[in-house]
């Protein structure tokens, strides 16, 4: 029992946060963000990744996994729909960047809205017919959708099939910040900004009507609909917002990787991102972030184990899930007194 309490970082953090006033909160948040932004400079000590370049690992997989896991968490964690095809939206974003970047001469920031919108459109198109089914059935349909997008990319001539698309332009420099493949700290900061925007969006929506509707749908969809919540509409919104985040991640990934090919967008990615959400704690954004960092970073950290590293990685996941079945930082609704609080 003692050990459990000691391990309860979530409540520990929440307590500090609740006791702080506005100014203290701003300080805590900015100091944390600043420290995280310094991460690319911490590559020489215990964090170093043998074999892979540390700064590259920080961007992909780690930061992009965090971004995608946050996006998937809107779908899986907030509204309780199991989506096994999340990679599709990532692929749509990436291919949008690849095609528009090589064909039109627009830069990454100009293409970003297109990538997001295309992913959202795909989300609506997929959502309208499929979100009427629930649970396992939805998982199967989305799994199929993920594969369809990959197979389209693999078999179409306009996507250059299995050869993929090369020579995707890098993002233009922002003032003194230069995007450089050999020192990817600016990429990391870019993804960090995107992560912060996503966190802001999720936190904002969670405490308002959409968040409540999602929560109600997750807990009892029939009761939600009978209490007047247009469940299909809110489910599609949730799906679409998740897709938007995935699309944005895809655009940046393509622009950093300079090359996309269908084999990057296999079911594996969907499953890994889902693993981030589940390992960290479904529905809790801090948990999801921790989960994504571990799943992105650990296989690179133990790369010196070479062939057995995935085995070790798997064993670690099994052990963690055995001891913490709800994830590392599980969601817990505290009985907080919102009657006394103002609107934030």
């Amino acid at each position: 029992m003692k050990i459990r309490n000691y391990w309860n970082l979530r409540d520990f953090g929440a307590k500090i946060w609740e006791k702080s006033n506005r100014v203290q909160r701003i300080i805590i948040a900015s100091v944390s963000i600043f420290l995280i932004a310094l991460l690319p400079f911490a590559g020489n000590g215990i964090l170093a990744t043998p074999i892979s370049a540390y700064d590259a690992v920080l961007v992909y997989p780690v930061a992009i996994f965090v971004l995608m896991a946050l996006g998937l968490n809107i779908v899986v964690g907030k509204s309780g729909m199991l989506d096994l095809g999340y990679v599709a939206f990532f692929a749509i974003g990436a291919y949008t960047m690849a095609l528009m970047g090589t064909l039109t001469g627009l830069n990454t920031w100009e293409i970003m809205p297109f990538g997001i919108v295309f992913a959202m459109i795909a989300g609506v198109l997929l959502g309208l017919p499929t979100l009427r089914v629930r649970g396992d059935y939805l998982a199967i349909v989305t799994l199929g959708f993920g594969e369809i997008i990959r197979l389209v990319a693999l078999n179409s001539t306009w996507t250059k099939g299995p050869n993929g698309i090369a020579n995707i332009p890098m993002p233009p420099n922002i003032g003194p910040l230069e995007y450089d493949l050999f020192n990817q700290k600016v990429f990391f900061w870019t993804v960090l900004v995107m992560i912060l925007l996503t966190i802001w969006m999720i936190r904002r929506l969670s405490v308002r009507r959409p968040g409540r509707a999602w929560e109600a749908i997750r807990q009892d969809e029939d009761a939600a609909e009978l209490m007047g919540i247009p469940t299909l509409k809110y489910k599609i919104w949730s799906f679409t917002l998740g897709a938007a985040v995935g699309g944005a991640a895809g655009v940046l990934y393509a622009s950093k990787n300079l090359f996309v090919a269908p084999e990057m967008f296999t079911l594996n990615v969907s499953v890994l991102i889902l693993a981030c959400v589940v390992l960290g704690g479904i529905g809790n954004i801090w948990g999801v972030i921790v989960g994504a960092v571990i799943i992105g970073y650990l296989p690179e950290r133990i790369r010196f184990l070479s062939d057995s590293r995935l085995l070790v990685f798997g064993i670690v996941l099994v052990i963690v899930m055995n001891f913490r079945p709800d994830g590392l930082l599980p969601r817990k609704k505290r009985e907080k007194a919102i009657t006394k609080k103002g609107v934030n």
Partner: protein
Amino acid sequence: MSTTILSIENLTMKFGGVTALNDVSINVNKGEILALIGPNGAGKTTVFNVITGVYRATSGVISFEGSEIRNQARFKITQLGIARTFQNIRLWGEMTALENVITATDVHKKSGLVGALFGMPRARREELEDRKRALEMLKFIGIGEYADRLAKNLPYGVQRRLEIARALATSPRLLLLDEPAAGFNPSEKVELAALIKKIRDTGYTVLLIEHDMSLIMGISDRVIVLDFGAKIADDLPSKVQKDAKVIEAYLGVPADAS
């Protein structure tokens, strides 16, 4: 005469070969407490499910305040002004009591996702209104002190009352209560009876399924009896009590009478 708020005409509901409701007609008058009783399996909850759109009736007309609602989506029916509670409690357990009620008040609100995201003045204002209204609703039902407790941790009786509060929060004109007194002890039943009367006196119309006869006879303005999917009585409580068909449905025919 009082005006009709809900009229069900010649309603038939079949599940495959099973006829759950057979040509049932029910009129609910504005401002009354109408009780729907009958032995187990008579089709009482089916009536509720058909009204609220859970099931699509096989045939018949259901009109609420003059408009046909038989083929409306479930959330639309609630938005039109019919709210219900559930026989087996179906609260959102991991929300607090207040959040349960606020979520239900969202029904008629206009500000959408974008408004919520950017904290537009309207969304902000509605948020505060919702919260105030929800708290008032909890106090009206008499469970104000439980506002910040998670629904799943509430005592059973409070959960039942919270279901009523949540249904009322959708601002219905017609409230459907499905066995609200199930599992209550006698003193809780007395309190509930007073509450239902208070709800009626505030201006709501109540359609109620209940098994407890003393509760029914105490508060209902009118009683409808269903048996095997058909309506067998529709009268004042005192008359229904003496109705031969009703007695037969509940107790059977005495052996020596046949």
